[in-house]
C-alpha cells in the first residue's frame, strides 16, 4: 500500500513520518515513532488509554487516522514531563497512589492536564464527568480524582 508523507509537531518537535492511509495515529506513535506511552486498551475509543492532545483537544489516538495529523500539533504522555521534573499531575498521581497497574495512567494524565488547562478549579463532579471517557479497572477512581484535585491546587499556587 502506498504510503503518505506527514509532517506534524510532536511534543514540540517537528516530526515526519510515512503512513498507510488505514493506519491510526496510535499505530504510528507506537510502532513507527517508538512512543509506546500511549496504550491500546480497546481500539475503538471506549477506554481512553491512548488519549493524546491534538491541536489542543483530547482525542483517542486510536480513532484518528495518522494522515489527519498533517500540520497538527500532537502532545503525548512523553511530552508532559520536562527536564526539570514531573508535571504536578504526574507528581500528585504518585503521591496519592492514583495508579495501580498503570496502563490507564498515561491517558488519565493527558486528559486531566487538558481539563486543568481549561479550568483551574473543576469540582469533583466536573472532574468525574471529564474523565468518564477514561476507564480504570484498578483504583475505583477515588485516588485519581483526589490526585487531580490536589494537582489543581498545586498548580494554582505555582
Amino acid at each position, binding site marked *: 500500500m502506498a504510503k503518505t508523507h506527514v509532517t506534524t509537531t510532536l511534543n514540540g518537535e517537528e516530526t515526519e513520518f510515512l503512513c*498507510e492511509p*488505514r493506519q491510526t495515529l496510535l499505530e504510528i506513535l*507506537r510502532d513507527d515513532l*517508538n*512512543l*509506546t*506511552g*500511549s*496504550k*491500546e*486498551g*480497546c*481500539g*475503538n475509543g*471506549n*477506554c481512553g*488509554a491512548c488519549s493524546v492532545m491534538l491541536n489542543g483537544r483530547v482525542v483517542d489516538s486510536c480513532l484518528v487516522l495518522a494522515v489527519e495529523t498533517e500540520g497538527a500539533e500532537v502532545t*503525548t*504522555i*512523553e511530552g*508532559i*514531563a520536562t527536564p526539570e521534573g*514531573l508535571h504536578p499531575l*504526574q507528581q500528585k*498521581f*504518585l*503521591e*496519592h*497512589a492514583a*495508579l*495501580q*497497574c*498503570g*496502563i*490507564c*495512567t*498515561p491517558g488519565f*494524565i493527558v486528559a486531566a492536564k487538558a481539563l486543568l488547562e481549561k479550568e483551574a478549579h473543576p469540582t*469533583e463532579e466536573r*472532574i*468525574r*464527568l471529564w*474523565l*468518564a*471517557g*477514561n*476507564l*480504570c*479497572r*484498578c*483504583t*475505583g*477512581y*477515588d*485516588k*485519581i*480524582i483526589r490526585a487531580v484535585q490536589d494537582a489543581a491546587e498545586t498548580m494554582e499556587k505555582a
Partner: protein
Amino acid sequence: MATETEAYLGKTDYKVIGTRPIRHDGADKVTGRAIYGADVTLSGLLHGKVLRSPHGHARIISIDTSKAAAHPGVKSVITVDDFEMPEDKIRELGEGAANLRHLRSNVLADGKTLYHGHAVAAIAAVDANTAEEALDLIEIEYEVLEAVLDTRRAMEDGAPLVDENQTTQSLGEKTDKKSNVSTHFQHKLGDSAKAFESADIIVEREFDTATVHQGYIEPHNGTAHWKSDGHVTVWCSTQGSFPVREQVSQLLMLPVSKVKVIPTEIGGGFGGKIRVYLEPLAAMLSKKTGHPVKMVMSRTEVIQATGPTAGSHIRCKMGVTKEGKLVAAEAYMAYESGGFPGGWAAPGSMCIFAPYDIENVTIDGFEVLVNKPQTMAYRAPGATNAAFASETVIDEICEKLEMDPIAFRLQNAAKEGTRRADGPVFPRIGNVETLKDAQSSDHYKSKKGKHVGRGVASGFWFNVGLKSSASASVNTDGTVSLVEGSTDIGGSRTSIAMQLAEVLGIPAESVNPSVVDTDSVGYTDVTGGSRTTFATGWAAYEAANDIKAQMSGRAAKIWEISEDDVQFDDGVFASKSDPEKKLTFKELAGKLDDTGGPIVGRAAVEPQGVGGAFATMIVDVEVDTDTGKVEILRATLSQDAGKAIHPSYVEGQMQGGVAQGIGWALNEEYFYNERGELANSSLLDYRMPTALDLPMIEARIVEVPNPGHPYGVRGVGEVPIVPPPAAVANAIYDAIGVRLQILPMSPAKVLAALWSKDGKGKA
C-alpha cells in the same frame, strides 16, 4: 518465651511499615516509559493473529490454510495439529489448575469449537494488518451444533454435551454418566435437615449471577523467540512468569530449563492473566519461521475468548431462632466452567457461610460445562456469587427478626475456633473487629436521606500462601538491590521492599526492587490469591535476615569480637560489650569490599500461616423508579488487612475491589444469543463503571495481625469485591421494597421487579 512472630506482632513502632513511600516504579508509569507486553519490540519481529470461531458450538469438518499461507507477507499458519498431544495431567497454576490437554484444545480448537471466539488457527506475517487480512483466506467448514449457555439447561438430561466424553465425578467417585457436570461435591457439617426443625424462621431463595469479565485495560499479549539453539524466550504480561513457563514448556514438549519467561509490566489481571492463550502460539510460529513473533489481542478477542468468571445459579436456605441464632444453612451452588472443566463452585463453597458460626451446614457444589470461554479466576473467585446469595438471605432474616444487620452479624459471627463447613477451624480472624468498625463508622451512624436505601453485607476470602523466592544484594552506598519474581500489578514492588527495609532499618527508598525473569530468581507463584505481599514479602523479610546475619559477621570481623557479641537494632550494628563500637547499616555496607566482598541475602519460602480476610460494606443508593437506574451515593468498606504494609495501596485494593463489585452488581454481563454468539464484546456494550458512576469509596483498614506472618500480613486484594453485589441488593430493597435475586441489577431487571411487585405487566 515469646516467639519471634509474637514479638513482631506485639510491635507497633515500625519505621517503614505503615508509611506511604512513593512506589519505586512510579516515575516510569506516570511518564509512559514503563514497558508493558504490547510495547516489546525485537529485530526481525513478525506479527501473529488468531482466527476465531464465529459459532457458539460447532464441529470442525475441515480447515484449509493453503490460500492464507500463499498470501504475500504471510510466513506461517498453524493449527492444533502443530501441537503434540500432551500427557493427560493437571498442572497447578496457583489460582486454578490447567489440564494440559484442555489447555492445548483451548489455545487452538481440536475437532470442536466450544465457544464463540475459540481460537482455530494462527498466522504469522510481516505486520499485523497483513496477518489480519490473511485470516479471511483460511477456509473452515463447520457443522454448527446446539449451544448450551446456562447451568440449568446444561444439567438437564438430554442437554447437548459440550464434551461428549465428559463424565461426572460425584462425591469423589468417578461415574460413567455422560454429563456437562464435571464435578459434584458436598460439604457437610452437623445435620442441617434436623436443625431446620428447630428454626423459627427459615428463608430460602434462588439466585442467578451473570458471566462477567475481569476487565483489565491491557489486552493479553505474548512475544516469543524460538532461538536456533532450541531455547525459547517469551515476553508477556502475566500474573505469574513461572506458571507461564510451565504451561509453555508442557505444550511445546520442552524441559522448563529451555523456556525463559521475561515478564513485562502488566496492565491488570484480577485472576485473568494466569492461563496462557497467545504465548504457545507465538512460540510455535517462531519455531516455524525462525523469527520472533509478537501477538496482541484486540479487545473483542479479550472479551470473547479470555477470562471470564463463572456465572452461577445458587439456592440458599438459612434458619434462625426467634432469638436470632443461626442454626442451619444449606446451599446448592451450580457454577459455569465454560468450555472446559473448571472449579469455581469449590472456592465459593468455602466462603458462602464463612462469616457465620453455624453448626449445621450442607453445601452441594456443581461445576458445569457450558458453551462459553473457559472460566478463570476473578478476584476471590466464586465468593462474590456466593455472598450475593447468602448475604441477601441474611438481610431478609434480619428484616423478619427486626434486628440491625450488623448487630445480627456480630451475634452470629465466626471467630477463632469456629469450624467452617468445608473443614478448617479459623485461627485468629478479624471478622468481629471488621463488623464493629463498620458499626462505628460515620457512614453507618449517619441519617439516610429521603428516598435513599442503605444496605450492608459481609464477605470472606481465605487467601493463599504458595511459593516465593527473593534475593537481595547490599550495595556499598548502603542501599539494597532486591530481586523478586512477583509481577507487580498494584504497587507490590514497594510493599515487598518495605518489609526488607524494615528488617534492615533503612528507608524504603534505599531499596531498589526489580521483578526479573524466570532464569534470574527462584520459583515464585502467581501474583494472585492475595498472596504477594504476604508470601513474597516474607521471602524479602527472610532475605533481609540473611543479610543481617552476614553483616553481623562482618562487624564482628572488623571489631575482632565474637558474632554473639554483635547486636543489630534500629539500623545500627553494635557491640553488646563495648558500646563505643557501632556502625550504621550504611557505614558497614561501605566496608564490605575490604572485609570479604559482596553480601547477598536470599530466601525461598512456602509459608503456611495464611490468614483469611473479612470485609463488611455499607452502601447507600437511590433508585429511579421511572428508569430503574440505581445510583451509588455513598460506599464504605471495612476490611481486615492484618497489617497494612503500605496503607495507600491497601486502600487502593479495597476501592478497586468495591468498584468492580459495583460493576458486577449493576451493569456487567455477557449477552449471548440462543446460538451462543456473544453480542457485547466491546467496552461500550460491556459496561464497566466510569468515574462518573461512582462516589468516593471510603476504605477503612482494620488491623488484626495474622499470627502466621512476621508482620501480621493477611493479604488484601480479593475480599473487597465480595460484599458489594449483596450490599447493593440490600440497599435497593431498603429503597424500593423489592429484592433483586439476579445479577446484574440493571435498569431493566429493577423495573421488571418493581412492576411485578406492583402487579403491573410490562409497559
